Structures are given as C-alpha cells and as structure tokens.
C-alpha cells in the first residue's frame, strides 16, 4: 500500500468504520447511563427544576476565575479546536461532500494562528497536569492517552498544511487516520465528557432547581 492508497483507505472505508463505531459507541454510552435511571423525587419541591437544569448546561461553561491560567488555556484549546474543525476551508469542503451543507471557512492565516495557540494551550495543560501535584495525583493513563489522541490530529494537520516532515500525501493520510482514532476512542474514554457534560449539568442543575438553589 503506497501513500495514495493509504489516503484513499483513510478517506473511504476508514472513515466509514470510524463513524459507525463512534455512532454506536456514543449510543451505547448514553444507554449505559440513562438505563440506570434517576431516583424518584418524593419531596415537596419548590420548582420542577427544568429551567435551572437548562441554565446549568450553559452556565457551567462560564469561567471560574480562581483558576484563570488553566481556564484560559482550556478555553483557547476547546474554542480553537471547534474553529479548526468547522472553519478550516478544506474541512468545510469535507462537510459539504458528506452532509451537503456548506458554509465559508476562515482565511488560512487565521486558522494557522488558532492552531498554534491551540497546540500551545494543550502543551501548557499537559505541563500543568504533570507538574502540579494535585493534578498529577488525579491523572490516570486514560487522561494522558486522550491528550495524545487529541493532540495527534492537531499536529499532523499543522504539519500537513505546512508540508513539513513527511510527504504531504502521507501526512494527510496520517492526519485523517488520527482523527479516526480519536472518533473511535471518543465513546470509550475520558472524551465522553464532550457529550455527557449535558447530562451531568442537567441532573445537577435540575436537582438544584427543585430545591430552590440557583444554578
């Protein structure tokens, strides 16, 4: 298999397998959570909690200022990743081909800046995780693994765009494969937080609301 064949496999069957695994994985994880059920509430509640549940889903995205360095890095990385995935022109073309919906991408030089910032933030967060005793004691292999899985698409994408290190075709193939690896790992690792955060914030916020605690 040469570079081009590898790229074609990654773009075709590879992507299909990864998408299927991710889709079923997410469904399974949601089922694993929801099937456990929520205990009945017999207390005379002050409110049904729906409003506070919904508020909590949004509000816990707001920064907690005591950790401003860590939080800033986390913001840059999460927002940066979102911008890169959805507003890098080749990615928008990819979404057009798959879903038939098109929106215009950002200029390449902007995406380049965002990518460098995101990579820097991720490195900073990794350093904190390793050097800060509180975070080091909390961290497991899984935490480092998802860091690597998230970092690979970023770095290979950056290298491919700038034609660095490896042949472009091979680097692009590796970039797509690394994304597929991330997709496959998503439902089975710490990356589940990318969709379960809605549930966890909902449960807490609505419980708070029932008791009259503002989210």
């Amino acid at each position, binding site marked *: 298999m040469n570079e081009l064949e590898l790229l074609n496999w990654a773009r075709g069957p590879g992507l299909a397998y990864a998408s299927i695994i991710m889709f079923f994985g997410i469904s399974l994880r949601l089922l694993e959570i929801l099937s456990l059920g929520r205990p009945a509430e017999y207390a005379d509640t002050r409110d049904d909690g729906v409003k506070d549940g919904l508020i909590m889903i949004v509000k816990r995205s707001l920064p907690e200022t005591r950790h401003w360095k860590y939080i800033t890095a986390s913001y840059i990385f999460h927002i940066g990743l979102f911008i890169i995935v959805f507003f890098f022109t080749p990615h928008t073309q990819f979404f057009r081909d798959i879903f038939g919906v098109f929106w215009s991408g950002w200029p390449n030089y902007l995406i380049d800046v965002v990518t460098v910032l995101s990579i820097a933030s991720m490195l900073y967060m990794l350093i904190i995780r390793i050097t800060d005793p509180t975070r080091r*004691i909390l961290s497991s292999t899984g935490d480092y693994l998802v860091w690597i899985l998230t970092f690979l698409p970023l770095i290979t994408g950056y290298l491919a765009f700038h034609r660095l290190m490896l042949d472009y075709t091979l680097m692009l193939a590796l970039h797509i494969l690394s994304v597929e690896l991330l997709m496959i790992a998503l439902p089975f690792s710490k990356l589940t937080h990318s969709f379960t955060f809605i549930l966890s914030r909902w449960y807490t916020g609505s419980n708070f609301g029932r008791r009259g605690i503002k989210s």
Partner: protein
Amino acid sequence: MSTSFIQGVNVLKKLIDAPIASYFSSCTNCGICAQACIFYTETGDAKYTPIRRVEPMRRIWEQEFTLSGRVKKWLGLSRPVTAQDFHDTVELAFESCTTCGRCSMVCPAGNDIVYMIRKMREGLTNAGLAPPSLKAAAVRTLEKGSVMGFPMKTFEAQVKAAEKETGIKINIDQPDVDYLVLLSSAEVMQFNEIIAALAQIFDKAGVTWTFSSLAHEAGNPGMHMGASEVEAEMINRIVDAAESLNIKNVISPECGHAYMAIRWEGPNVIGRPYPFKVYHIIEVLDKLRQEGRLQTTGKESERLTFHDPCQAARRGGVNEPQRNLLNMVTDNFVEMSDNMACNWCCGGGGGMNTIEKAEPLMKKVFHRKKQQIDELNVTTVVTMCATCRNTLEEGIEDNNMDVEVLGLTEVLANHLLKENKND
C-alpha cells in the same frame, strides 16, 4: 445491621444511578474541585481533592457499568476494588469532609460531587467502616430519641424552664395545632434559649404549635453515616408524630443537616411523599414577617455578619429569608466575602465534629472562616445552625477572637415588640 465488604460493594452498585454515571463520564480530572474545598485550601494536600474521595465508587462504576470498563477488567488492565481501598477511603469520605457541597458549585462538568460522597459513605457504612462515634450517635438516637442520648424528662425540664422564664404555656403532644416543632440535641442542651425565643415569637404572632414526645429530635446521624435504615426510622418517627397529632406543618430547627434530612431526603428515604409540609424555622419566621405577624423594635447597631449553613443555604435553598429577617433588626449587616450558596463551610458539620481524630484538622481548616470574619471587622456572627454555632464558638475561642456568635431566632426574639402598637 450486618456489614461486610461485599455488602458495601453491593450497596454502592445499587446506589450508582444515571446522575452518578453521567458524573463519572464527564469528569476530566481537571482538579478544579480542589480549590473549592477547605480541607484542600487550608492544608494544600492533594489527597483532599473532592473527586478523589469517591475513587472506589468510580472504579466499581467503570468495571461494572461500562462496556469499555468490563473489557479492561477482562483483559486484566484494571485493578478490582479491595477492602483495603475501602479502608483507605474512610479518611477521605468521613474524616476530612463535612459534605458541605462547595465542590459541587464549581465543577465545570456540573458534577454534584457531594451527592457521590454521600453514597460513598453509604457504601463504607455497609462495609462496617462507619466512624464509631457516628455509630454510637445513631444507637443513642434510636434508643433514647435524642442524638446526645438525654431522656425525655430532660427535654421536658428544658421546656418547663422556658415556660417559667416566659410565662407562656408550651405544648407537648397537643393535636390540631399549626406547627409541630423539632429541635436538635444541641439546642436542647446548649442553646436552649431557643425554646423561650420560639414561645415568645409564636405567642406574639398568634401561631399555635407543639412539641411531640414521640419525636422531638431533628438531628439524624443516619444521614451523616449513610445508614438509610437509621435515617428512615428517625424520619418515620416524625411522620408518625405529625400524623397522630393531625398537624400539617413541621418545623425543622436551626440545624442545617436536620433540614436536609427532614425537608429534602426524608420523603425519598421512606419512599413516599409526606402528608405535611416542612419548613426551616427561619422560613416560617420570614413568612410571619411578610404577613406582618412578626413585629420587632429597635436595631442592632453593632457591625455583624451572617454565616450561611451549608445544608440549609447551599444545599437546601434557604438564602433570602435570613437576610430579610436580619435587615429587620440590624443597621450594620455586612456580607462575608463568599456567601449564600458559595459560603465557606465552618468545618464542623457532616459528622466531623463527632470524630475525635479529625479535631486537629477541623481546627486547622477553621482558618478560612477566621479569615472571612477578620476581614469584615465585625463584633457578631449570626447563624441558623447549632452545629455551625458550636464550631464557630470553638474556633473563635481557640483563635482568641473577640466575636460573639448568635442564633438568628434568638436575635429576633430579643427585638420582639413586646406591646401591641394599639395597646
């Protein structure tokens, strides 16, 4: 209650519900919960990071309730939870946590961490690892009807003393009245001025009320321990008392955890709604204020602040009534730097104050409260929880601070308008 490690594990498996599964799925080990916990901020010790307190439960969840965890277990990639892990968690779940729930206010994933710590305690208690002091408190409460273990006649004597002091008749077991009032042991034995204060306020407001000989204790060690049978038994006594006296409203006293147990957990622990409503005493007083039935005279001019008890304010949703009432009788009320739902814990609740070996740690973490009080330069701290009051008094004495601690009901009683305006 029979206990064993296996039973503890099985109980935890039963307690893992959809919220908990979503919490563990959403935790990224970011460590932000650490900065919200006094035991972490005042010691700097990473082991006190709140989410670490439930690690055995997380592993049970992963290994039993997720496909990926089961595969990892099958491949021998994960370590099963052992009895030693449970032993090691006792310190973190019981001896260095007041279940104040401040961690649950900051988690970016929205995880209600203390909800999980409470379940972790239940697992440990079923494994026979509950702190002996809490077990003893539970036995006393079940046998004598009071957390401190005093008999009914002691309670009656305190009621008689208050009657004598106020000249107002105080009912025990009077049916068909507006309210059944519960007290915590600490209020009966240490802060008994509350009885006279209530008698005067209710008499003036035209409220009819009674104590019950079946259930006067509001405290519930079953809740701190995570012994649901004990918790349910104490709740059932209150339900029986209210039902037999045909009373539609029950008052939980100035005690945070009692409010949590009776107001919010009770119906869930016994598995059915109550045939009556439950209020914190401060909620009732605020209602009387709104109706114009609580009239006060004069104002405290001394600079004072309010300490919000975690289980009533942060976890129970009672935040405004105490402020409405304080503003009635004070000119110089200042808020602590963090207040209401984000107030720092006193360090003594959740059963901590009963655990002897936790005392040095309790004294150490009081530093945060000292700092909060010091920066306000106040002469008085008012609160609405007997445990907070106790902890504050001890902390203030240990640190040679010149600050007085008062219960809110008592402050109001001191300012009660003695004569009607028309008289």
